């Protein structure tokens, strides 16, 4: 028996897992409807796929949510996991699930997939015959991913960096890399049975003043870590940055470089897709403004040529959105996409050149790390500050890079820390900003930016 299989058996021998049958799951994946695979939908669809967020604790509420989404013409169903499961605390999620079922009050902020189990969940996931995307934020997602695939969920979001640096303070990053390596291997293993399982990175990161070069580097590295384990369908992603021009440039550069680096590791046969997240920062309290913001995101997603858009709701600033709000935003996004035709192809060569150079400099520094494996090179690069995510709460993040917005709302680097971007690029970034201001004003600008779309 392979070491991976031995590890899988231990992971699935968990008191909250009801007798996992590997052979039966393989048979299920082999014969599953192709419509359940987002990789298949990407290939056959000639439009941008629309996917909302959403997850409720009980089976019945989750089923009702999906019914709403299907009525609203959703292309991809979400399965957002509750936060106890994300922390591998299945005991608490079990207790809260029971309370939710008994009292009809949602005691969890998502669907406790492990506690429901794959036999139950599969009935729902196969019922609607649409691809489902697993959204979670779990550093150790091994058990969750096994349960998800067994349930018929063939798109797995996340990665060792993007599901750790924005979400966690203490979880060891080196462990996260190893646990995600397991996930990649399992996804690659199942991919040979039917259509490929799609892996999707989480580009928004902290969603606050993350400069495009950092977003792209992390997307590319998670893509490479996934492809080197044998994954054949991968989605890179980013979220609306607040500057339309910068988003368009980012879209062009990430597509170009994803292809370039996949080829570098002889994985050009893998399909790479682009996912765009509607605004991920603080939302306006005014729901009409929120709706305008969402609509603007949809327009930009079209301009960057995204394969999928992930929606937000007008209720974002006031709490967990209802299923009605989620369905409404899907319908609105689909409507906007239908009426967007013949958008101009905008190219900003100077910005593209600068961004490309920044990304390639950082990538080169990562590859030059003397470690013997890519994941260890990436780990060292984060630890050494070569990759620095602004506003990350994680103890390992360097937090020396400082970014602000220029007059055109572009995110600019005014302090590079240890991130190895060239002097030319650094000077270009700074030249776009008014740095004659005193420090207090710059800090106030940053604080203001957290609520920029107010």
């Amino acid at each position, binding site marked *: 028996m392979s070491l991976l299989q031995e590890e899988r058996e231990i992971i699935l021998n*968990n*008191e909250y897992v009801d007798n996992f049958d590997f052979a039966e799951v393989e048979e299920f994946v082999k014969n599953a409807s192709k419509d359940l695979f987002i990789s298949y939908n990407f290939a056959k669809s000639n439009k941008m796929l629309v996917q909302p967020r959403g997850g409720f604790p009980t089976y019945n509420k989750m089923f009702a949510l999906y019914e709403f989404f299907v009525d609203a013409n959703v292309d991809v169903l979400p399965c957002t996991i509750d936060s106890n499961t994300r922390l*591998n605390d*299945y005991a608490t999620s079990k207790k809260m699930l029971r309370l939710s079922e008994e009292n009809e009050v949602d005691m969890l902020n998502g669907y406790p997939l492990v506690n429901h189990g794959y036999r139950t969940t599969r009935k729902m996931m196969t019922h609607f015959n649409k691809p489902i995307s697993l959204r979670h934020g779990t550093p150790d997602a091994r058990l969750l991913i096994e349960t998800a695939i067994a349930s018929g969920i063939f798109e797995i979001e996340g990665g060792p960096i993007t599901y750790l640096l924005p979400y966690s303070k*203490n*979880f060891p990053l*080196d*462990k996260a890399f190893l646990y995600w390596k397991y996930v990649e291997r399992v996804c690659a293993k199942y991919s040979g049975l039917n259509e490929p399982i799609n892996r999707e990175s989480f580009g928004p990161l902290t969603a606050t003043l993350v400069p495009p070069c950092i977003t792209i580097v992390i997307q590319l590295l998670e893509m490479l870590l996934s492809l080197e384990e044998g994954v054949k369908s991968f989605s890179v992603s980013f979220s609306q940055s607040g500057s339309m021009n910068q988003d368009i440039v980012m879209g062009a550069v990430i597509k170009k470089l994803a292809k370039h680096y996949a080829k570098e590791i002889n994985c050009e046969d893998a399909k790479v897709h682009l996912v765009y997240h509607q605004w991920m920062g603080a939302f306006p309290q005014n729901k009409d403004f929120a709706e305008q913001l969402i609509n603007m995101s949809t327009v930009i997603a079209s301009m960057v040529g995204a394969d999928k858009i992930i929606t937000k709701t007008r209720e974002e600033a006031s709490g967990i959105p209802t299923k009605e709000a989620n369905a409404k935003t899907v319908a609105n996004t689909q409507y906007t996409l239908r009426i967007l035709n013949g958008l101009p192809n905008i190219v900003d060569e100077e910005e593209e050149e600068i961004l490309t150079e920044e990304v390639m400099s950082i990538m080169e520094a990562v590859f030059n790390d003397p470690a013997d494996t890519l994941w260890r090179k990436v780990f060292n690069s984060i*630890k050494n500050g070569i990759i620095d995510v602004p506003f990350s709460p994680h103890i*390992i993040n360097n937090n020396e890079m400082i970014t602000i917005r220029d007059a055109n709302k572009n995110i600019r680097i005014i302090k590079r820390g240890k991130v190895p971007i060239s002097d030319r690029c650094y000077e270009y970034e700074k030249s776009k900003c008014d740095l004659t201001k005193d420090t207090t004003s710059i800090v106030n600008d940053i604080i203001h930016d957290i609520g920029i779309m107010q």
Partner: protein
Amino acid sequence: MNENRLLIDVGSTYFKVAANNDVQQHFRDFNKNIFDDLKYKCEDIISKYQKEDIFICSSANGGLSTLIIGITHSFSLKYAINTAYNSGINIIDTVLYSQIEEVSIPSDLIDVVIVVGAIDGVSGVFDEKLLNYLSQINYSNIVYVGNKDDAPYLKENIEKLVILPNIIDEKLHIQEEPLKEYLTNLYQADIVGKEDIKHLYDITANQIFSTPYIVNQTLPLLVSKFKVADPYILIDIGGATTDIHYSKDLVDDNMVIDNEYDRLVFKKLGVFKSKESLIFSAKNNEFVYELLAYLKVTENIFDEQSEKALKILMQLAIFLVLCKVSNYNKAYVTLKLNALNSLVFTGGITKVLQQEDIENIVSFFYKKILNSNHNPSIVMDSNYDIWTMATRD
């Protein structure tokens, strides 16, 4: 295993000799010194190897006893404790500097005192209170890994003070390498000074490390040999102490260090040299009588000298260490035991207990203490592969 190397581990009750994938174990003859005993039993194999190809680790001299003085539980003391444990050092006490005038003075000879506190840029943290305290204790070595600004004052006033870079950087991250290197070198020097062990350098040209340090280094390699899934803990129950090496994702409160695993040592939970304190701890545990009934024995077992009594003591040791790292007992570290996938056992315990004996006690612990049916996989390192895997690298 590298065929050109001979690997030797000197424990407090056994020593083990490994070459060509073969591990021999010998119960120590306490009437002889270690070197003579080893030569007597293993002369044939030792004589086949050059000094450069013989690698030795040891926990036989009990390790270095350490006292740490720091200013905060959350940073300075915690960091120094962590580094000391991972260097294979035993901590006899910790002193919070704000309470230094009230704490009792340890009577034992202390091998090394570690003084730590504050980030660079802060000054005037340490004053004559420290000097007064140090003048009352009996120690062999003293090292300072605190703020840079206080170093000249301490250097001037403390004889033989070794000054190393601050263990805390400006972002409150741990900088452990200098202290780790100092402690492992001190361990070597300590061995040279110990009559019982120093002659081991007659047969090796390599540094002798402490066994816990070596085991800690091997943990990232464990998955290549054992059917084990992270997160796991490794429990080494020996004659004198019980060590736990644990995967860092089992704790909420991590530090950024190079190793993915940390170590805890329980000095008073051994089954031979510290048997009395083990029994004392057991009797003070509110579950012990229920546990003894579960194991179908009575408390008279504590007075027995039999194989059965030894087995029960081993099982008690497992139960007690799990209690000590669970929510039941707030110790230095609380581990998230419900997230545990595997429990690995090494040391003398694997020679006494069967897999089912361990499963039995682990299952009792999870049911009684954690109210859970969780069932981590049990792995037995009966062949002492773990320390040989570490030594070969």
